[in-house]
């Protein structure tokens, strides 16, 4: 690499360096108005849950259940967040989770045991992501269309494999991971996987060139291209990443349900997109946070839990979710215009 050509010169006046604001203050001042408001919403929900059903909601088992349920969709959402930040969309995540979960639980796969199930789920997820990525990055298909096609095909293939039957898992060791005996300090293994995926996702987005390129491509793809970034390759990698997350989520779902079904992961795409959006990810790309998305997932899962405990039907639940999405976007637009 060539070194910069120009040494500093004295002719051009220099300003004395300003005092830098401390990074912590910058965090509080900027990004985290949004994070704090999401935390506020989550706290309010916990309060509501605690008031309406004090015994059941705050019970350790219930909280473990909420987090476990959040884990599967949460892992999918981390991948989705990357894709949306890059200016794309992945409508096929739910279908990929379904396909990965049934492929990993066929009788043939189960012969290879625990490892076989895990790797099949991951490889199927990455494979679907590869198809998405190639179509979008090199076939210049619109992400909406390409992943919509994948949604249809993957669900169809999942149905074909199972013929509509539930494929029960018989491998030893898998189901144990969902049992209470395997909890470490009260934390279910599924939740630990979710936590690890979240931390890795945060690091990749904020501390690596990959994350930087993702943001650049989503913020201004033409500028990124003219700056020398390989925009197409980056897009391919992003859909691979989303597929990988779906594979991991499928494995978690197998542990959770003890089976593989072609109806798994139904409408995950909408939940993941909604969580990312209320977490502050711009649907047009260029901006978004992992923390926001994860909080979005926790908010939705908590609502579902509170509604279930209060014996409210899922129709009411759906309406509430819709209202929250609208409210979150309106609030964010407000904070965006004032800062």
């Amino acid at each position, binding site marked *: *690499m*060539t*070194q*910069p*050509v*120009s*040494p*500093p*010169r004295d*002719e*051009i*006046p*220099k*300003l*004395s*360096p*300003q005092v*830098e*604001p401390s990074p912590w203050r*910058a965090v509080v001042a900027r990004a985290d108005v949004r994070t704090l408001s999401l935390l506020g919403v989550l706290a309010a929900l916990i309060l509501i849950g605690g008031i309406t059903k004090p015994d059941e909601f705050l019970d350790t088992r219930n909280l473990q259940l909420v987090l476990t349920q959040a884990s599967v969709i949460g892992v999918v959402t981390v991948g989705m967040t990357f894709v949306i930040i890059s200016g794309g969309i992945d409508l096929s995540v739910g279908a990929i989770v379904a396909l990965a979960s049934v492929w990993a639980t066929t009788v043939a796969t189960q012969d290879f045991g625990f490892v076989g199930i895990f790797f099949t789920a991951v490889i199927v997820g990455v494979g679907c992501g590869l198809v998405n990525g190639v179509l979008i990055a090199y076939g210049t298909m619109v992400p909406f269309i390409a992943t919509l096609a994948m949604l249809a095909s993957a669900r169809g293939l999942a149905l074909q494999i199972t013929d509509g039957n539930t494929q029960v898992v018989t491998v030893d060791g898998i189901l144990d991971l969902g049992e209470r005996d395997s909890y470490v300090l009260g934390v279910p293994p599924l939740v630990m996987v979710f936590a690890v995926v979240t931390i890795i996702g945060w690091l990749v987005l904020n*501390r*690596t*060139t*990959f994350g*930087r*390129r993702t*943001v*650049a491509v989503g*913020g*201004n793809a*033409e*500028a*990124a*291209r*003219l*700056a*020398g*970034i*390989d925009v197409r390759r980056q897009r391919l990698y992003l859909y691979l990443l989303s597929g990988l997350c779906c594979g991991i989520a499928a494995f978690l779902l197998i542990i959770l349900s003890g089976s593989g079904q072609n109806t798994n992961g139904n409408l995950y795409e909408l939940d993941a997109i909604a969580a990312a959006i209320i977490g502050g990810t711009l649907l047009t790309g*260029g*901006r978004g946070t992992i923390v926001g998305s994860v909080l979005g997932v926790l908010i939705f899962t908590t609502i579902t839990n509170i509604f279930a405990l209060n014996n409210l039907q899922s129709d009411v639940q759906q309406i509430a979710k819709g209202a929250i999405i609208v409210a979150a976007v309106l609030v964010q637009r407000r904070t965006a215009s004032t800062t």
Partner: protein
Amino acid sequence: MAPEPPLLTMSGITKSFPGVRALDGVDLDVQTGEVHCLLGQNGAGKSTLIKVLAGAHQPDDGMITWRGEQVILRSPIAAMRLGIATIYQELDLVEHLSVAENVYLGHEPTTAGFVVRGKDAKASTAALLKRLGHSEVDPARLVGDLSAAQQQIVSMARALSHDVRLIVMDEPSAALDPDEVDNLFRIVGDLTAEGVAVVYISHRLEEIRRIGDRVTVLKDGRAVAGGLPAKSTPTREVVALMTGRNVEYVFPERPTHQALPDPVLEVQGLARDGEFASLDLTLRPGEIVGLAGLVGSGRSEILETIYGARKPSTGQVLVDGKRLKPGSVRAAVRAGLGLAPEERKAQALLMLESVTRNVSVSSMSRFSYGGWLDRSAERNAAQKATRELSLRPDNPSALVRTLSGGNQQKAVLARWLLRGCRVLLLDEPTRGVDVGARAELYAVIRRLADEGLAVLMVSSEVPEVLGLADRVLVLREGRVVHTAPAQELDEHRVLDLVMEGSPAS
């Protein structure tokens, strides 16, 4: 002057945009049935003026009188209702609709107010097209399937579908072949014979001589001459009016090069069909070469093709004697090329991001270990580069969208400085940069050249090219018509070359 009041009088029209006074007390009067030409360099205020006339911009000050009565053009529809139609350079047609649907878009003939009478629309469209001498265009065809010339006819038919008294044409001949231009002139003649006035904008003096009645010359947002006779005013006088400047830029002194090193960039026979023809060019370290030409002369396309953002039809680009992979930006960047594009916001900057991230985006691998970023090294290096260019504010975390145009340009230059680029391609380097900040930018560019960079710059502002470059290539319609050291050229000469194509004495 005719005894009857003018059809249109615009007086003292003033319009400011943030940081620019686009129009500063412009007067224009148009008589019934005349062809009134508007002349001026890029940025003189022509398009702002016609947008005010079309109702698309509201003037900050000034008065518009239409057929003796003072009017306010609140919207394009208001202007249209009065009988003022505008045909813009970028045609505003809906490609997926038919010719007739485009012509009557927004004022479809209807029954009971909402049922569109398609047959009537087609019949009257056919009549309009016949009047324009293009009865071969089928009103039922999709506009997207038509040629550029035919699309222009459709735009004109749309204007005539209103009860129009004044048609504004913004460089209508730019996209046309010579025989299509003849037809355009015939149409203009027919319209004026019917009493319709035409405001005609063109860069081509010979056209203005052929069809114009009077000429108004704009310069730096002012009308420097109004209502000159189009046929008899000498070219020299018109060019002098267009170029005489109030603002004198300070350009850095040129170093006296003894012997320049071997060329770093060689362009051999580079061409792109329909954009520019066989270009040869060598660029040596320490040298600034300027491309002068009008909008549409292929300047930006040349830079982008050298940079690999467009694929050439023929020809090649060599860096240090090695051939670059055509059509690959990454190859160009790796070989040491850097581009500061014309549309900074759309093509160069990440507007949501900080200065540091904008500067480091092309050199991230230098601050990373296996993809892991060393953010303090990144920040320090970016700050070193921006300080060298005295980018203000001196704060690497400032968001790039809060910077002024000149400092945004410095952020782009810092990106390539940090990358260690050796050939800098500058497309309109001072577009959107305040007049006051330009001199500093010129000094920065010259300093970079003195330090060994080779610079290829493009500008539609002729004085900028002449003042900054060592050597100038003059372009006209995608061809180099003249090459000379900058000191041997003056602005009149260059404008003669770009407008008339032949070197004037």
